[in-house]
């Protein structure tokens, strides 16, 4: 049957089942709430719900997770904007301009832009996903091996080094620190214990969720607390002025550009949505005539990163459903939901359970649409969190973060890691380093080293092997050009601030 007919069937199946409707709306509200409460995130909710999906049907379980994914990616933008605490790594670039907007008293505008752009990016991406999953899947499974994925990670890091830190050097130091943190634990080839300092719990490696919570949520609490202690704390200014339609139309090119970037980055397994958001933001700056305004509260920054990361949600389902390759932490948990129901995501799902696939596609389409409706309502209430005096909000956020960090793997060491990251973030941020860069380095570090090792094994330790594979070669050249270009402009361009 054609995609459109399938979509109608999926929609009918989705909304003709009372339990399905309940789960759908539960997912929409839950994803937004957990995304939007500082300290916890959609990943916390997903980790908590994972064991419960065993009691649901496979269809409902996968649908629930895909809905949480769509609305949670949007929800994470709200905390990025209001508190400088991205709910997930893909929301980190949103904070670059979103948080300054809050400090300038434009929180409502930033959140409104995030609502609109998330909905648009997500919906368009859901539509492309429905049309393109099957053909793209067939191509990617043979075209993207370890050498290509490594090249892509390298490219992603090269781009990220130019984002968020005060100097290119500090950008690279931030990323390298993240890459080094990823080394802790067992090496990806021989399982050899590295930097465990005789603490068995460190063998599990350092997970990125407590690290994100620490670098963003906890360090932000510390910064505010320092203000409070020195008596210069000001409560954030509140506003619920949403952006006008005209303002959004003025940014239509940014939206379209971010959809394209978001979708193509999102297809890539492992790093999709995060890379999408960083690239979306980076391109917005590169194309802008007013580069210096970025980072000071420019709405286009929020628009670019939020459109791109939601556009990546649909795209991330392609490698997941077609290849069984998760694009990030949440899609990795979806693999878990499949397996709990004795299914393996992959080409088989399309053959064996087309109904399931199309119910999920329909649910994602409507979840993105519902961001528009529920998002505006919810935002008006969430924004009031800012009214809670800081001395009461601080313990709440710290304890939520504790539960959030612990719930992922059930390890107390993760709570310790989170607070260490909080202290480290406090000192690094005041010296011009990029905590977003550290987190990206940490996430990409594991996959980077593993695919590098696999690529080397496959290419029999001959470096030139990368250049016999066109896609890998292209990506490596692009990465090298990015590095060279950024070094050139850091040294020779005269528009230093």
């Amino acid at each position, binding site marked *: 049957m054609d995609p459109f007919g399938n979509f109608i069937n999926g929609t009918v199946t989705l909304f003709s089942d009372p339990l399905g409707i309940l789960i759908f709306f539960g997912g929409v509200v839950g994803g937004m709430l957990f995304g939007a409460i500082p300290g916890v995130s959609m990943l916390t909710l997903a980790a908590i719900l994972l064991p419960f999906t065993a009691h649901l049907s496979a269809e409902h379980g996968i649908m629930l997770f895909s809905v949480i994914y769509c609305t949670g990616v949007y929800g994470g933008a709200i905390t990025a904007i209001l508190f400088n605490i991205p709910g997930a790594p893909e929301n980190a670039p949103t904070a*670059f301009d979103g948080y300054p907007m809050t400090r300038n008293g434009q929180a409502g505008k930033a959140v409104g832009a995030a609502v609109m752009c998330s909905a648009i990016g997500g919906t368009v991406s859901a539509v492309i996903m429905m049309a393109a999953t099957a053909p793209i899947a067939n191509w990617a499974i043979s075209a993207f091996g370890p050498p290509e994925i490594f090249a892509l990670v390298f490219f992603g890091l090269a781009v990220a080094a130019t*984002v968020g830190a005060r100097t290119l050097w500090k950008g690279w*130091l931030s990323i390298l620190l993240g890459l080094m943190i990823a*080394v802790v634990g067992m090496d990806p080839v021989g399982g050899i214990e590295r930097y465990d300092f005789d603490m068995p719990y460190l063998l599990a490696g350092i997970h990125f969720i407590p690290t994100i919570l620490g670098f963003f949520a906890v360090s932000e609490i*510390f910064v505010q607390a320092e203000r409070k202690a020195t008596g210069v704390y000001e409560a954030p200014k509140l506003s619920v002025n949403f952006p006008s339609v005209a303002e959004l139309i003025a940014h239509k090119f940014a939206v379209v550009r971010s959809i394209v970037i978001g979708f193509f980055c999102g297809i890539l397994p492992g790093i999709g949505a995060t890379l999408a958001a960083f690239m979306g933001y980076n391109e917005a700056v590169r194309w802008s005539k007013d580069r210096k305004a970025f980072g000071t509260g420019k709405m286009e920054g929020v628009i670019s990163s939020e459109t791109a990361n939601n556009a990546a949600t649909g795209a991330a389902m392609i490698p997941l459903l077609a290849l069984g390759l998760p694009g990030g932490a949440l899609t990795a948990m979806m693999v878990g939901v499949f397996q709990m129901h004795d299914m393996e995501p992959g080409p088989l799902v399309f053959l064996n359970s087309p109904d399931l696939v199309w119910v999920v596609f329909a649910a994602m389409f409507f979840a993105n649409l519902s961001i528009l409706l529920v998002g505006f309502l919810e935002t008006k209430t969430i924004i009031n969190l800012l009214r809670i005096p800081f001395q009461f909000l601080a313990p709440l956020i710290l304890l939520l973060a504790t*539960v959030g960090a612990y719930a992922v793997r059930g390890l107390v060491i993760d709570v310790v890691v989170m607070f260490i990251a909080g202290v480290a973030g*406090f000192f690094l941020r005041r010296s011009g380093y990029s905590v977003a860069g550290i987190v990206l380095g940490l996430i990409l570090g594991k996959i980077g080293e593993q695919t590098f090792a696999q690529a080397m094994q496959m290419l029999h330790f001959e470096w030139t092997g990368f250049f016999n594979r066109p896609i890998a070669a292209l990506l490596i050249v692009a990465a090298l050009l990015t590095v060279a270009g950024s070094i050139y402009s850091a040294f020779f361009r005269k*528009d230093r601030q």
Partner: protein
Amino acid sequence: MGKLRLGHICEAVFWLALAAFLYIESFEFDRGIEIYKFGATGWPRALLLLVAVAAIGQFLFQFVAGDKATSGTVGAATDDGAEEAARQSGHSHFRWYFSTFCLLILPFLYMRAHDLVGMFLELDKEGIHSVKLIAAPVLLFVYLLLARGNHVGAILTLPLFFAALLEDLGFYSMAPLFIVGVTLLMGERRPQWIALTAALIMGALLFTFVSLLYVGLPTGNISPFYDLSHWIVTMIQ
């Protein structure tokens, strides 16, 4: 000295020392892997080399240009508030850093207390528990002494202390104390407000996570804290 400040030198020393330390530590796992030429150390050592290069690059750049941002970096102008807060607080002199360091080391002393005592005494499981039950109040007392002179340092240390105690004493007993501690450090002095905050936050957390979602929070391993945790969990589930 160009445009260097003491802070810049400390920064460069920090990165180079970190890289050197991790490089030396890497000999601990310097074993070959049969199927992989670069072994377990190839990747981290390459990264450490790059850390050293970037740290030297940063140092030279600061020598020439001070605290300027490089062009071509995106969001470089972003002061997300942390730098401004640091400037306003005036917490950048050596004494402040030193006293903060002393405070921050306390939770780690607790985590390693049984190893330290274990160097002199044979400890069984019971013995380890006793050491921990003694170390916790002693170190907490030292913390309170040091905290009097360093408010921000105390704020940075308290959550780490909380995390260090979680494994042994459990979330259920420690979280209420933590809430009271944080609220006090943030400047709230009204007892009824502090009690209300603790009750509301604990109630909301326990209801949502333990009662509704069955998340197993850390119960601790040491009696009577372990038993108290299980009693609470059985009560509310």
